[in-house]
């Protein structure tokens, strides 16, 4: 276990100089207006167009994406080329489930810290509404036999073997949201946490209503300048996160039926993250690049940690990723000015808050004598979260980092912690700092 050494120890400082995201668009059951690459290009071209350097000046492009389309394999390279970065800029795609977007930023930061790069475009994109629908293996087998069949009688015989089950389609999105090792849907892991920390349905719904309220307020007060609109080829403009429900209320949420544990369950569509399409991209730079291009600095990436937890309780991942960062940075929970913990489920964020301040949890699960000071709900996800604006899995990690930097800038505060839980039993966390003295630290 190497939790005592900070992620970029011995490396150069890493700056985030700018970032941009698309509006997050709620999936409506059919493929949305943009593919994953279109989303990333939409976010990226607006971002690059406002830089003083040409896209070719980038050292690499790293994107998180979990379900690229069949024609978007290594989507980062496709996006880099479409953004005009040119053939010589390498690009790679990372996959750590819901942590993919943050993983891309961590990978970029590592490359900058250790001198392999000076200027990197990193982030995540996901078009969940475009998740492919597949044929089951036995149908593929039959198709392959059909292609090899030499005679009409052979083909007739194959036709006779067709059964209804051959047409049972595999929805990759549903498969992706199920943990194969424990055979639980992500929603069910949230139910487990709710039970463990005695979180009521009412608490979850209150949390969800608040998430929508905060997002609506942020929209009204113009706090989401991190969004550049997207435009479809027929001229339609998408300029805001359209999952927000301004009419969200306890009354409406209480009526919803549980979505995963159909009887006795508490996790509903209303208190879970929405299925959405969206991309978020950041530009990371070394001090050299900041100086060379006179770049403004949004913030500095101080540290990053990844942790493994039981797949059944994957929602607690953030606790295990955030804890070592505070410990090795010598910080108290109260030193963190703002928090972003991705809202995969209301129950899951509430569970993280409960575990964070629980003496028992600190002792048994984190091996700490003292628990952390409670996270102030007024400092957590201040402008709403994935329950209201959606969770395009590959991009959320990049979105919370980008938004946290915006919050720090707006409030003039110093430290922020972004964290998320990761399907399969992991957590990721990133410590950010607003740095005034851009480019002068060594």
């Amino acid at each position, binding site marked *: 276990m190497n939790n005592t050494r900070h992620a970029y120890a011995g490396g150069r400082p890493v700056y985030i100089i700018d970032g941009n995201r698309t509006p997050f668009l709620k999936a409506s059951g059919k493929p949305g207006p943009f593919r994953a690459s279109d989303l990333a290009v939409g976010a990226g071209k607006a971002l690059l167009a406002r830089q003083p350097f040409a896209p070719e000046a980038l050292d690499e492009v790293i994107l998180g994406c979990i379900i690229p389309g069949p024609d978007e394999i290594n989507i980062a390279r496709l996006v880099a080329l479409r953004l005009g970065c040119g053939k010589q800029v390498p690009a790679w795609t990372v996959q750590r489930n819901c942590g993919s977007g943050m993983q891309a930023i961590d990978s970029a930061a590592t490359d900058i810290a250790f001198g392999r790069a000076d200027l990197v475009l990193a982030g995540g994109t996901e078009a969940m509404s475009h998740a492919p629908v597949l044929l089951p293996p036995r149908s593929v087998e039959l198709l392959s036999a059909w292609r090899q069949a030499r005679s009409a009688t052979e083909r007739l015989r194959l036709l006779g073997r067709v059964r209804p089950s051959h047409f049972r389609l595999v929805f990759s999105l549903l498969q992706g949201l199920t943990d194969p090792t424990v055979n639980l849907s992500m929603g069910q892991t949230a139910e487990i946490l709710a039970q463990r920390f005695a979180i009521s349905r009412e608490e979850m719904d209150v949390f969800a209503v608040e998430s929508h309220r905060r997002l609506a307020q942020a929209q009204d007060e113009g706090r989401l300048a991190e969004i550049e609109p997207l435009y*479809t080829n027929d001229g339609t403009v998408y300029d805001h996160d359209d999952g927000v429900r301004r009419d969200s209320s306890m009354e409406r949420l209480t009526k919803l039926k549980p979505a995963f544990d159909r009887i006795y369950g508490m996790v509903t569509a209303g208190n879970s993250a929405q299925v959405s399409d969206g991309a978020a991209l950041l530009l990371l730079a070394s001090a050299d690049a900041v100086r060379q291009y006179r770049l403004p600095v949004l913030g500095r990436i101080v540290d990053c940690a990844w942790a493994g937890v039981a797949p059944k309780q994957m929602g607690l991942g953030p606790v295990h990723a955030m804890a070592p960062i505070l410990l090795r940075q010598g910080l108290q929970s109260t030193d963190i000015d703002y928090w972003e913990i991705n809202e995969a489920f209301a129950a899951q964020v509430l569970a993280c808050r409960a575990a964070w301040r629980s003496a028992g949890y600190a002792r048994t699960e984190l091996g700490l004598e003292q628990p952390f000071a409670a996270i102030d709900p007024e400092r957590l996800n201040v402008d709403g979260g994935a329950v209201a604006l959606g969770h395009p899995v590959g991009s959320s990690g990049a979105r919370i980092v980008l938004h946290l930097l915006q919050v720090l800038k707006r409030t003039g505060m110093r430290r922020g912690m972004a964290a998320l839980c990761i399907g399969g039993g992991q957590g990721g966390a990133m410590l950010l700092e607003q740095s005034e003295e851009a480019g002068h630290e060594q």
Partner: protein
Amino acid sequence: MSSDITSYRHWRSGQDPAGIVHLTLDRAESSTNSLSREVLDELDHLLTDLKGATPRAVVIRSGKRNGFIAGADINEFTAIKSAEDALQLIRRGQEVLARIETLGVPTVALIHGFCLGGGLELALACRYRIASDDPGTRLGFPEVKLGIHPGFGGTLRSIRLVGPLAALEMMLTGRTLSAGQAKKLCLVDYTVPERHLDNALRALLAKPPAARILSLKERLAGLPVARPIVANFLKRSVAKKADPRHYPAPYALIDLWRSFGSDETANYKAEAQSVARLITGSSSRNLVRVFQLQERLKAQGKTDVGRTRAIHVVGGGVMGGDIAIWCALQGLQVTIQDLDRTRLGQVVKRGQLLFSRILKERRAVETAMDRLVPDPEGRGVGRADVVIEAIFENADAKRELYRQLEPRMRPDAILASNTSSIPLEELAGALSRPERLVGLHFFNPVDKMQLVEVVAMAASSAEALARAAALVLAIKRLPLPVRSSPGFLVNRILMPYLLEAVTLVEEGVPPATIDRAATDFGMPMGPVRLADAVGLDICLSVARVFARHYKTEVSARLEQLVAAGHLGRKSGKGFYEYGKHHESRSAAGDLPPAEICDRIMLRLLNEAVACWREQVVADADLLDGGVIFGSGFAPFRGGPLQHIRDAGAEALYTRLRELEQRHGTRFTPDPGWQELFQEAQTQPPPAPPL
């Protein structure tokens, strides 16, 4: 013919181990291959040298990246002084190409890129043709656009190969074919990726393709009994596009085909005579002139300033949006700024439509779309090499915008205004560095109108102007440097012509009759219809601006129509009514009296003389080129000043004086006519001076 040439300037010759002789054309001192007299002479020597030797095959190919052969050397056209000269030149070409045909060994043309005009004729003289399937491969006969038709045996060989209907269609329209289309027509035998051209060559020689039999339709159309009927049909369809009085070439081609008999030698001779007649006629001479004027305009943009990569356009209306779209299509990184996001959405939509129409292929369309970046907050200003302002015509708003833009622009970026009516000098005051301000006046619609006026005020720096002109050329438009004066060149010349047409309407002449007079002269669209298309409100506001500077009138009729909300085509009614049933192009009216034509055209010509005298543009050729490419002025007349020379300056001047007596001072000849006479006395101008 002796074969004493041992080294060749334009050709390389070599035999490969398989015994195939490769003749590679790589024209000296030129980036593009064309068939000059020298190129043909050398080829003749090479072929003569081959007599006696029996190579397995002879291959003709190009050493240029950009293509095979782009056609005849058009600059040699202007050296032709007489029909005899022309005939000799053409017969010489026919003779050399016939030598290829009668070589007695298999001959193959390996084609990539442009294979046009004489180049295609040369390829057709080979027994086989293999073309690269690259999108850059284009085959065709654009001769008709220069007022001629193929003359090196191309009419006969193409008709023989693909049939009269297909071949004539190609030659009459001048349209070019992709490799795939050419293969479908059997104009080429094989299309393969360029990397496989040599493999295909070996395969073809090992197993030559069977001769193709023409379709029944083509064979029937070629029968002597059917030919007059087909010819009449073709002439009727050509007449919809080109007036036989102005554009004789397509009609001559149809007649030539109809006259073809069984005697091949006579046919070739007839072809040569037909081209010789056309090439010395005024239509072709002026169309060649138009081609050269186009080259002259292009040269205005050939400056050694840095390449423009990124532009920022402010204003997402029709002009701003279309400029942005066009620049993205031509490969620039474009940010387009407008506060109104729905307008940006419309720009994206129009971009998608244009790119799909032009580029077709999905990935190419996507790439162009990716270069077009809507930018509601104008954050692309800081990266742009050129910032183009295309907001509404209000000097205060523009000045305010410039104040905001300048501090955010790169120090080396230039600022270009698309204004058509506000003097740049009035705007320059808002800038701390006015030398970086120029005008880039695009015409609507941007994707159709080739000309862009590059407007210089006294303060504009030479570098800024050079970069603006280079940008125009880079986006495949024609830059015309003009001096900053109201209306610049094109609008200024068009305005009196439009206003005279309105006066005629006021006098009771039906609009269709006036328009007919103009189109009979050779204008692409009559002045009344043009006014309706531009919008009468815009015409009126321009007329008001002009009235302050020039002795033009503001028409009462125009004011009435605008006041009544009749703004032209956009409102459904102007001088004409537009609707489901009214769109009829003409109520043809009686043949217009020459009077109408003189009144509208002489006002245009008089204004052209004024612009020439005032040196709105540097010289007469730039003026003619600008007016042709900016307004569509009858190309076969070679431009307004060329027309004055052809028609006789004295006669036109006299006519102006008559009109002045009858209609007043708006016909008073410009003092520039006197200078024209003087110039004519010192240097007689029969041939287009270039």
